[in-house]
């Protein structure tokens, strides 16, 4: 043992470029979705239009998935003690496969190209299976979870749901691209894929990270222990029963269990909003406001889903989709990115024994606030465009600006990191 204090090295932290590549390419998919909206005024008329299918996948398999995978590379070692084997290599392979797969799939769905759909599905599946396999290795090597945090358990559940979402997605690609015959109706498979993607994977991941990130960055009390203990397992159990009922064609069970899933989503949003009201922050910063807007959008999507259960009008599912994808996920993801990216740049500067600027200097709140305002305006325009299609191009323009600005803000933090590292 040396008498001088040994230096503190952090080789276990993934290299900054591992998560950063996902975070910086993600907004490009959001911009592409905005361009589609800008170009196709009829895109939001129904959830089944080629443009809508393409835009949904640019958002979900492009923007959302990129950020989620990048964040998991960082979060699993930190909150679950699960370090990825060769994180840089996993990041390089996964990023290339998932990025090109999402682009190909979105093109194939929009242009009606079976080959592009198949190629996209195969690339996405290869990327996701690589990531899932690496995650399993990381989690298997992690020490058993201690304490009351349910995040490690719920991250595992979310990864399981991602596997199932991928399976349904591959089946859909084979149906659309190669005419695979199904023993049940195509919309059933689409619904299974969509709800496992949104609630099973996206919802559980959002919840698992919220258990940690909301109290940590928004300075709120912790989520009630009973709530975090039950929410994800109950949601997953009900989702499984709902899926079985759907496949078995038991309509009453589908309606009842679907209502329970909607109630569980509302419970998560309302619980988070309640915690945010107890924040010890004197002045909420821009990411705090963005996260609150995201939870309000989730409540709105719950109302839209209930209306969709009561009425057959095609607008309600589209409205629910807009509020879930753009309102809830894009809002929450942006809020988290605005905390994660400055923190990571700060952490890597500190590890390199560089005197790191204050995090607020790495990414000033004023820049975030302006971009979040555009996000709110884009969401409002998208909601209106569901009912007034002539507004769709305006909504598209705002979405392009929103994601372009998000990218510029993230690049600002990267530039500050680069400047400090080479000062």
């Amino acid at each position: 043992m040396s008498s001088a204090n040994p230096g503190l090295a952090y080789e276990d932290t993934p290299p900054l470029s591992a998560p950063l590549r996902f975070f910086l390419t993600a907004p490009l998919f959001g911009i592409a979705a905005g361009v589609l909206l800008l170009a196709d005024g009829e895109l939001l008329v129904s959830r089944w239009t080629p443009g809508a299918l393409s835009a949904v996948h640019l958002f979900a398999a492009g923007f959302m998935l990129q950020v989620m995978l990048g964040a998991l590379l960082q979060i699993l070692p930190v909150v679950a003690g699960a370090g990825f084997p060769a994180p840089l290599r996993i990041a390089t392979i996964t990023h290339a496969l998932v990025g090109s797969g999402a682009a190909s799939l979105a093109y194939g769905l929009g242009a009606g190209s079976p080959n592009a759909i198949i190629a996209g599905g195969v690339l996405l599946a290869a990327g996701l299976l690589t990531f899932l396999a690496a995650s399993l290795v990381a989690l298997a090597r992690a020490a058993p979870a201690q304490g009351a945090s349910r995040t490690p358990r719920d991250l595992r559940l979310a990864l399981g749901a991602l596997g199932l979402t991928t399976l349904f997605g591959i089946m859909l690609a084979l149906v659309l691209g190669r005419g695979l015959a199904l023993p049940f109706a195509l919309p059933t498979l689409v619904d299974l894929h969509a709800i496992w993607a949104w609630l099973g994977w996206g919802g559980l991941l959002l919840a698992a990270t919220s258990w940690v990130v909301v109290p940590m960055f928004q300075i709120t009390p912790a989520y009630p222990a009973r709530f975090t203990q039950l929410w994800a397992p109950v949601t997953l159990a009900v989702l499984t029963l709902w899926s079985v009922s759907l496949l078995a064609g038991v309509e009453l069970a589908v309606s009842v269990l679907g209502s329970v899933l909607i109630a569980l989503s509302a419970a998560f949003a309302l619980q988070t909003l309640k915690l945010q009201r107890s924040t010890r922050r004197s002045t909420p910063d821009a990411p705090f406001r963005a996260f609150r807007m995201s939870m309000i959008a989730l409540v709105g999507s719950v109302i839209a889903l209930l209306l969709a259960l009561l009425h057959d009008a095609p607008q309600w599912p589209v409205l629910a989709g807009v509020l879930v994808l753009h309102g809830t996920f894009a809002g929450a993801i942006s809020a988290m990115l605005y905390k994660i990216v400055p923190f990571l740049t700060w952490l890597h500067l500190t590890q390199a024994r560089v005197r790191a600027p204050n995090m607020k200097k790495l990414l000033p709140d004023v820049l975030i606030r302006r971009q979040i305002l555009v996000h709110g305006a884009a969401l409002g325009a998208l909601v209106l465009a569901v009912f007034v299609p002539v507004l769709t191009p305006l909504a598209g323009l705002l979405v392009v600006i929103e994601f372009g600005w998000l990218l510029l803000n993230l690049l600002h933090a990267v530039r500050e990191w680069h400047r400090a590292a080479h000062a």
Partner: protein
Amino acid sequence: MNAQTVDARGLEPPEPFERAMEAIMALQPGHAFTLLLDRMPHPLLRVLDRDGYMHDERFREDGCVEILISRP
């Protein structure tokens, strides 16, 4: 052994990290301090292992983590 307490609970990142690092870097051989955090700091524990610090952590009744960090 001289044990002080560094309370880094309820602070927004990176402040808990900064406080822990300051205390660790100032730790003299044969001394120890108690670190209070809202959650288990897995990366910090790996670093402490690698760099030869002793640590003993436990979850308290109130859910926070108490870590006794000592330098042999």
